[in-house]
């Protein structure tokens, strides 16, 4: 095997999500702790005594004031009492109900689904990948060798085109929605929003979703397999900017470039900043000033997902260290959970951030206030399997 193949092997071995990862761990932990409790000497450490004291105090507090009790508040109070650190406000489960207006696109093995704010879900069809049109009137959906525009209300296919090679990663351009960029085989292709004039726009496209620039709806950023990122005009095919990986390129000293791997591209809502993210580092390019801000993550830490808020420059990142994933907004941690948290989606109003938690069949929702320490977290259990992935939360 080549060195690249060995790296890919090691990445697959260490990063592939395990089925029921969180549940299996909790079951094993409880079994082990119970087994140890049966065999261990009857000595309790000071910290354990403290926990019991705190738990007793919490129980008394809850008993005195039943009005705002509830398991989540009990645990939250309990943790405040024990560790004396600010904890996010806990919100009880509310069933599958989204906290903000809009609809979610969700895929799983059985196909693509639209989840309404009320939690009602509707199957769109056996599509594997999809993206919303700018105002949510249509969904550009891909499956095997077909790209189609589907009406999410009637599930009717407005148009479809078939390619000789597999189709994936469709992304609809913003504002007027004139174009859809997608990957077919290893090529970047762009088609008009009405399904006409399907053209090849680039070669050696990496398995990374292309990103339309919000402030300039004809402008697209896409990544090639060698790590080069190109910003070009979709109408004229004119290359506006290239972030190369050569010795003088701006990415020359990044791990992303050296590994030839770009994993994510994202624009800030004003189209001024472009995030180019790899596994272990990410760079934010300010196209107005030409400045760039490169961040290298510590060893053993990997970047799982990144998403700019629909307004402003707030950037959400999901970063995994060991068997935990931390979600940060603007660099401030707002949530940490076991296993893999990924598929970050901002609500259309920018007030909520959704993090997928595949191994636990849940979505965690962070109410993203101005200060990260005020962030509130809630969770909803969805009815999808462990392969569920979100594909956009739209209008």
């Amino acid at each position: 095997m080549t060195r690249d193949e060995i790296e890919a092997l090691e990445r697959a071995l260490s990063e592939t999500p395990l089925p029921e990862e969180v549940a299996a761990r909790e079951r094993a932990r409880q079994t082990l702790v119970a087994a140890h409790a049966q065999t261990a000497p009857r000595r309790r450490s000071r910290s354990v005594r403290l926990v019991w004291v705190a738990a007793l105090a919490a129980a008394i507090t809850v008993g005195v004031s039943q009005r705002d009790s509830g398991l989540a508040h009990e645990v939250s109070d309990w943790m405040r009492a024990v560790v004396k650190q600010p904890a996010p406000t806990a919100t009880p489960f509310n069933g599958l109900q989204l906290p903000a207006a809009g609809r979610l696109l969700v895929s799983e093995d059985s196909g693509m689904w639209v989840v309404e704010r009320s939690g009602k879900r509707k199957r769109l069809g056996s599509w594997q990948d999809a993206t919303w049109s700018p105002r949510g009137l249509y969904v550009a959906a891909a499956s095997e060798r077909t790209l189609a525009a589907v009406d999410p209300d009637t599930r009717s296919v407005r148009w479809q085109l078939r390619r000789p090679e597999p189709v994936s990663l469709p992304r609809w351009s913003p504002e007027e929605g004139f174009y859809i960029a997608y990957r077919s085989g290893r090529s970047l292709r762009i088609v008009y929003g009405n399904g006409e004039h399907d053209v090849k726009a680039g070669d050696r496209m990496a398995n990374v979703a292309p990103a339309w620039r919000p402030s300039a709806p004809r402008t697209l950023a896409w990544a090639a397999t060698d790590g080069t990122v190109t910003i070009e005009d979709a109408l004229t095919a004119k290359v506006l900017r290239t972030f190369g990986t050569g010795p003088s390129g701006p990415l020359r000293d990044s791990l992303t470039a050296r590994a030839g791997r770009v994993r994510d591209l994202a624009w800030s809502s004003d189209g001024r900043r472009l995030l180019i993210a790899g596994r272990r580092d990410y760079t934010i390019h300010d196209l107005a000033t030409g400045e760039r801000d490169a961040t290298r993550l510590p060893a053993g830490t990997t970047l799982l997902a990144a998403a700019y808020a629909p307004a402003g420059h707030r950037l959400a990142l999901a970063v995994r260290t060991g068997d935990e994933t931390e979600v940060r907004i603007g660099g401030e941690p707002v949530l940490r959970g076991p296993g893999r948290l990924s598929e970050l989606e901002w609500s259309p109003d920018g007030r909520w951030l959704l993090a997928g938690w595949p191994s636990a069949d849940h979505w965690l929702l962070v109410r993203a206030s101005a200060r990260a320490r005020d962030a509130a977290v809630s969770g909803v259990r969805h009815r999808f399997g462990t392969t569920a992935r979100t594909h956009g939360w739209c209008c």
Partner: protein
Amino acid sequence: MSTEEIAVQDAVAGRLRVGRPLSRRTDAALVRAAQRGDGDAVDELFRRHWPAVHRAAWLVVHDPAAAEDIAQEAFLSALRALDRFDRRRPLGPWLHRIVVNRAIDWSRARALRPETAADALPEAAAQDSARDVGEDILAALADLGPEHRAVVVLRHLLGYTPGEIAAMLDLPRGTVNSRLRRALDALALALEEER
């Protein structure tokens, strides 16, 4: 309440965010504390070593239930033998040796007494955006025999040298090297065919 719900409520309530991080205590210090009956030390040893042990088991057996059982049994074996454990030796390799050998034994037994037809086995789940390559690799790995999968996992997931793998599996070093070479050749070939 299911374990998933408990885990989610932990996260929702902030317990996971502000809860105990892993300490700077060494494994030896934690083992010593665990031998004295400290449940927190057992819990921390579990949190440190479970991810790699569970992952290694799953990659060798490719069966979620069996992987969980094998990994859990490895920890319980370690717990039962804790009083006899030599604290001068690292805990990780001891656990890895137990879990990989058990995983190989389970896979051999499964091959002799298959419970379902091979083509009815579910495929591994994956959610990563770069999953096409990862899926190909895991599918190719699953096609190898358990002995070959085990050396790949020990070398490329857990980072042991061929000499250390030979000691763990009680094999001549040359056998480990040849299994490793054959396994990597087979994986490379499978990846080439996928392209």
